[in-house]
C-alpha cells in the first residue's frame, strides 16, 4: 500500500468519516495506532506486553467503528486538528482509560522531584522516599495558591515532563510568555517556602 498524496488523503478522509472503506482506513493507520499505543505506555511509565499493544490497537479501531462509526464521524477539520491528530488523540485516550482502569500508571518519584529541587533550591535527601514524598506534598499544597496558568505550566513542565517549548505549543502560547509564567510560578513558590522557614 503506497503513501497517499495530499489530495488523495483528503478524498479518503471524506470517505472514512462517512463510514466507508474501513478496512483501508485500518490498513493505513494500523501502524500509527500501534506505535502511538506503545509510546503512550512509555510516556505513562507503564509496563506493557506485546499482547497489550495488539489488544489496544484493536480496541482503538473498535471504538472508531462501533455505533455506526460515531467517533469517526465526529472528526471535523474545522476544529483545527488534522485527521491523523484525531486518530492519535483517540488512541491516547483509549490507552489512558485502560491504564486508569488497571491503575497501572508509573508513580511520581525521584525523576519528577529532581528538576523541582534544582529550580527552587530545596535541600532534600532524595534517596529517602519519605522525605521526597513530603517535599512533593509541600509543593503541591502551595501550588493551589498560584494563578491558573502558573499552576498549569508548572505542573505540565515539572510533573508531566513537557519541555517549555512543548508547553507553549500545547497551550497555543508564545514560548517567551511561557518562560515568564514559569519564572513567576517558581518565584512565588520560593517566596512561599522561604516565608515558612
Amino acid at each position, binding site marked *: 500500500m503506497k503513501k497517499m498524496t495530499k489530495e488523495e488523503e483528503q478524498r479518503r478522509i471524506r470517505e472514512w468519516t462517512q463510514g466507508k472503506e474501513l478496512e483501508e482506513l485500518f490498513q493505513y493507520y*494500523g501502524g*500509527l495506532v500501534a506505535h502511538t499505543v506503545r509510546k503512550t505506555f512509555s510516556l505513562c511509565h507503564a509496563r506493557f506486553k506485546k499482547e497489550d499493544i495488539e489488544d489496544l490497537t484493536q480496541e482503538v479501531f473498535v471504538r472508531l*467503528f462501533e*455505533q455506526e462509526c460515531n467517533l469517526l464521524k465526529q472528526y471535523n477539520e*474545522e476544529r483545527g486538528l488534522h485527521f491523523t491528530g484525531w486518530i492519535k488523540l483517540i488512541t491516547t485516550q483509549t490507552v489512558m482509560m485502560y491504564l486508569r482502569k488497571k491503575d497501572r500508571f508509573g508513580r511520581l518519584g525521584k525523576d519528577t522531584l529532581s528538576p523541582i529541587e534544582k529550580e527552587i533550591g530545596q535541600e532534600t535527601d532524595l534517596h529517602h522516599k519519605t522525605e521526597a514524598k513530603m517535599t512533593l506534598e509541600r509543593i503541591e499544597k502551595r501550588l493551589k495558591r498560584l494563578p491558573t496558568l502558573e499552576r498549569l505550566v508548572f*505542573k*505540565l513542565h515539572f510533573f508531566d515532563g513537557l519541555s517549555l517549548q512543548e508547553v507553549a505549543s*500545547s497551550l497555543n502560547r508564545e514560548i517567551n510568555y511561557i518562560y515568564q509564567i514559569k519564572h513567576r510560578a517558581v518565584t512565588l513558590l520560593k517566596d512561599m517556602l522561604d516565608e515558612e522557614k
Partner: protein
Amino acid sequence: MMKSLCIDLETLARYIGGTVSDEERDRIEEHLADCEDCRKEFAVASTILNDEELSECEPLSDKESRSIWDKIKGKIAPILQWSRSLYSELTENAWFLLFEPAPAMSRSRSEARPPVVEYVYFSKELSEILEAEMYFRKTEDEKACMKVRVTEESEPAKNVRLTLKREGRKDVSRPLRDAYVAFDDLIFGDYHLVVIQYGKESKADYLLKFRIDKAGIDEQYSES
C-alpha cells in the same frame, strides 16, 4: 467499561486545535490545572501530537493487516449499514447495472438529484484466486434481496454452486450460470452461504456467515 474523563474529546480537539473562545479556553485551563487525570492525558496527548517520528509510520502490508482486521470485524456490531449511495458511484461499476436497483433507480421515489438507491455491498476473498461479491437491497420492511457474484482471477468462476441456509427454512441452492445468482425475499435473520466449486477430482467449499437486520448486514465471520 473504561473510565473516561471530564473533558470530552471534541472539546479537547478544539482546544488543541486553537479554535475555542477565550472564555472556553480559560475554563478548560482552569480544569486542567486542577484535575490530575485530565492534565496527564492532555500532557501525553500533546507529546504524541508533536511527535514527528509517529507521523512517519508506514501503512500496514496486506498480510499484516488481514489477520488483525478479521479480529476487529468480529468485535464490531453491524458495520455494513443500509446506506444511500449516489447513482453516479454505482454506474462506475458496470456489473452493478445488472442488479435489480438499476431499473429501480429510474423508479426512485427519492426527489434527490442525482437519484439515490439503498444497498449494502461487501466482498470476500474465498481463496487466493476466488472472490465473492454480495449486494443486498432492502425490499420491504423486514426483507431484503441479495445477488452474489463469484469470480476467479476477476473472471466469472466456473463450476460453482451457491447454497443459502437459514435455520427453520429450506435450503435454497443454485448453480452460478450467469453473471450472478439472486436470492429474493430474505427475511431478516442469520444466514449461511455455502460456496462450492467443483474441480475435476475434488471440490472446495467455503462458508460465509452474515446477519441481515434493520440496521444492515453484519458480516459475522467466515471459515473455509
